[in-house]
């Protein structure tokens, strides 16, 4: 083989050098920074006080829970607790808490902090909308720095799964007390893989890597620290802009894949779309059943019959979602299959007949009225894609003479508005894996006015839900929950719209990963997020 001349070697070396420099320049300093694109923001980031998905998404990264959950949505992984024991009667859980965990400010975390955080969740003063998830708690104590004892009054078969949710995130007592109402608004101190940097509501949430982190759950190859130095959660409300931002690399990951753009994203060579069907998400419009406009079950049933969910799923969501007629997916645990053929599907003529029967008759303008009052229910909704859904509902209802009024709010405002008694209808979506997950959230009388925004106040339901939650026999539980499902479907307290899959779009610059589905937060701890080498 001919040896290269001195000159050409030098030139080649120079070329390689230039190429290397070029690559180094192309792989910029911000290769360690990651932008996640989202549609909406949370109202705040205080773990037990927000039920918003946008809150949980961030909190999973900022803080840790006693136990973790794997992508299969079943396997419980050790996280802050390295092991645990459950007493034979299912009433006492004893956790061994790790002794090598530190908060973002460097302080060591002990079982005392875990007990504080869980007791804060349970404290009625905190007014947690998801308090029921903890079960019927007797006491939560930390006898020493590495032991946590969680005692129940009645068994709670889902307890470990519920303790993996972001609401039980362990936080630093001193920071909570120092910041007061501003905790989770101006600052935060957790033990998560990322630390709070700054939050500009409706714009961006910036978090930086927790350098000491090494206690990530076992479902991740990387136990910590995180692979990227900084994560920016950027709010981009418009679907088209989100699509473009992903295609042009302004953001690397988005769990808020716009349905309108998903075909384009699937075809784009630099974007991958990953999906998980291990959990469910259902979007619905709820009725405040004690409001004069919608207090008649006939009217609510008529609204259910007048709306064409199938057309919406195809036309507004391009067939990417499943039209919903049931309040939870029929694939969810403990769904009552007796209800399958009783669901209210599209039938505008029957809707009109029901409205006539309810006394709301058509006037000269083609609108429904009773005793001189027009049937004009007021719906509160999120802005963005929800507003499109509500407009489609409005158009469908107009065809049977119902004049739906719409009042959209930004997500940062909406949660507060939805906790009032001002509206007749509201929009909401929720993640769940079982009937119990959904029913305990929405239909307990203790959960009024939020998340039980329907004002569903029925002692029998309360009893059935308590029996179901504390049942040891799965058949008993399914029977109890099945009865509640029948009750609420018959009363038509919701207008279900669609069941949606978890889909995450990410740039091919990012290492491939599996979508999580815990509380609908597809990225979970964020330890898997890293650039391809």
């Amino acid at each position, binding site marked *: 083989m001919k040896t290269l001349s001195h000159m050409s070697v030098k030139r080649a070396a120079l070329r390689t050098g230039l190429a290397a420099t070029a690559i180094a320049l192309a792989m910029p300093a911000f290769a360690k920074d990651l932008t996640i694109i989202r549609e909406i923001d949370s109202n705040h980031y205080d773990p037990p006080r927000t039920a918003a998905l946008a809150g949980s998404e961030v909190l999973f990264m900022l803080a840790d829970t006693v136990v973790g959950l794997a992508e299969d949505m079943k396997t419980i992984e050790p996280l802050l607790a390295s092991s645990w024991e459950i007493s034979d009667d299912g009433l006492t859980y004893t956790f061994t808490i790790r002794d090598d965990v530190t908060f973002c400010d460097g302080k060591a975390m002990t079982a005392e902090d875990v007990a504080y955080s869980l007791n804060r969740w349970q404290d009625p003063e905190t007014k947690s909308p998801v308090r029921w998830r903890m079960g019927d708690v007797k006491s939560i104590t930390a006898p020493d720095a590495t032991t946590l004892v969680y005692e129940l009054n009645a068994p709670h078969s889902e307890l470990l799964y519920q303790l993996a949710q972001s609401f039980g995130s362990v936080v630093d007592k001193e920071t909570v007390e120092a910041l007061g109402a501003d905790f989770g608004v101006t600052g935060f101190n957790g033990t998560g893989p990322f630390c709070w940097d700054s939050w500009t509501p409706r714009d961006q949430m910036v978090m930086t890597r927790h350098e000491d982190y090494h206690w990530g759950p076992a479902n991740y190859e990387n136990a910590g620290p995180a692979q990227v130095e900084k994560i920016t959660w950027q709010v981009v409300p*418009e*679907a*088209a802009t989100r*699509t*473009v931002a992903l295609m042009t690399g302004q953001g690397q990951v988005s769990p808020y894949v716009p349905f*309108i*753009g998903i075909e*384009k994203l699937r075809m784009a060579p630099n974007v991958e779309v990953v999906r998980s069907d291990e959990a469910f998400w259902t979007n619905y419009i709820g009725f405040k059943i004690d409001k004069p406009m919608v207090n008649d079950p006939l009217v609510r049933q008529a609204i259910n019959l007048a709306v064409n969910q199938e*057309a919406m799923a*195809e*036309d*507004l969501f391009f067939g990417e979602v499943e039209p919903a007629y049931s309040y939870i997916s029929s694939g969810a645990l403990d769904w009552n299959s007796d209800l399958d053929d009783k669901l209210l599907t599209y039938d505008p003529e029957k809707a009109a007949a029901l409205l006539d029967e309810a006394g709301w008759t058509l006037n000269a303008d083609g609108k429904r009225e009773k005793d001189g009052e027009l049937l004009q229910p007021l719906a509160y909704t999120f*802005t963005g894609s929800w*507003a*499109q859904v509500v*407009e*489609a509902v*409005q*158009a*469908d209802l*107009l*065809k049977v003479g119902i004049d739906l*009024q*719409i*009042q*959209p709010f930004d997500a940062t405002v909406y949660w507060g508005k939805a906790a009032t008694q001002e509206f007749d209808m509201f929009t909401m979506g929720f993640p769940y894996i079982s009937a119990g997950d959904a029913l305990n959230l929405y239909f307990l009388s203790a959960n009024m006015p939020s998340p039980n925004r329907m004002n569903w106040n029925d002692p029998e339901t309360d009893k059935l839900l308590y029996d179901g939650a504390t049942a040891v026999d799965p058949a008993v539980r399914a029977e109890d929950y099945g009865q509640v499902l029948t009750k609420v479907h018959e009363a038509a307290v919701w207008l279900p719209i669609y069941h949606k899959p978890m889909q995450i779009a990410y740039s091919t610059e990012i290492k491939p990963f599996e979508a999580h589905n815990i509380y609908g937060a597809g990225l979970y701890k964020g330890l898997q997020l890293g650039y391809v080498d």
Partner: protein
Amino acid sequence: MTMATDTADSPLTTPANEGGEVAAPPPRPHWLRRLLRDKAAAAAILLLALICLGAVLAPWLAPYDPALNSRAVMKPPSFMQGGVPEHLLGTDGQGRDILSRLLYGSRLTLLIGLVAVGLGGAVGSFIGLLSAFYARLDPWVMRGIDILLSFPAILLGLALVAVMGQGIVPVIIALAVSSVPDCARIARGIAMGVMKQEFIEAGRAVGLSDVTLFQRYLLRNCISSIMIFLSLRFGQIILIGATLSFLGLGAQPPAAELGMMASQGREYLLFAPHIAVIPSVLIFLIVLTANVAGDALRDVLDPRLQT
């Protein structure tokens, strides 16, 4: 004004004769004729008239109910590839007919503009005239107007909506309020000139009351100039109104309004650009024609521009 005949060719008007006597300038043709002589103005007025006519006749012209959705979503205009003959300008993301929404939308947009300009113009002009009429009031009123001038219309709109809630009424009020300072300044300027005229002093001398003097001498001499300003202001108001609706503050669904239609189309910009483009073009045309027409009207009507 009585209809003057075109006397350019009449034997009464003789050109400057041999003797070097300068004849009186020929009488000016009627303002309408002068207006239509300007090709651009004529086209603008015609187009604006057509748009207004379409808006007024919307219930009879629109092929569909503007709020009626259908399964044919995001269809492009019928003359484009993929379009359907039933929808001349296509459909939006909810399957509503864009042509029908455009007709109803321009109705609302024009109405917002007219009411806001009318209201703001009336209040503003009155303040301006009053301030010129009573010189003692002038510094106080004008400083107040200066303060109002420092609020951008959009900011004012946002503030009013925050207080009054979303809807057309708060937007109209915001637009009217934002027109007040401009109109007041213009009216005052015009009135200052009129106030210096001798007939005002004459009126005072013969002991006319302030009300009569204001009404009969000041207002009547200023009104045409003010109207010209308002016609120019109309285009601006339409634009700001559409902007507020674009931001979601004005008309609420299912009503159609051009700014709101453009805003709704934004979601589809990448996939069905016509949904946003068509209403935007109409806003552009309304504003452009209103401005050109207003300009032309000023040219032919404003006495100060007549030489």
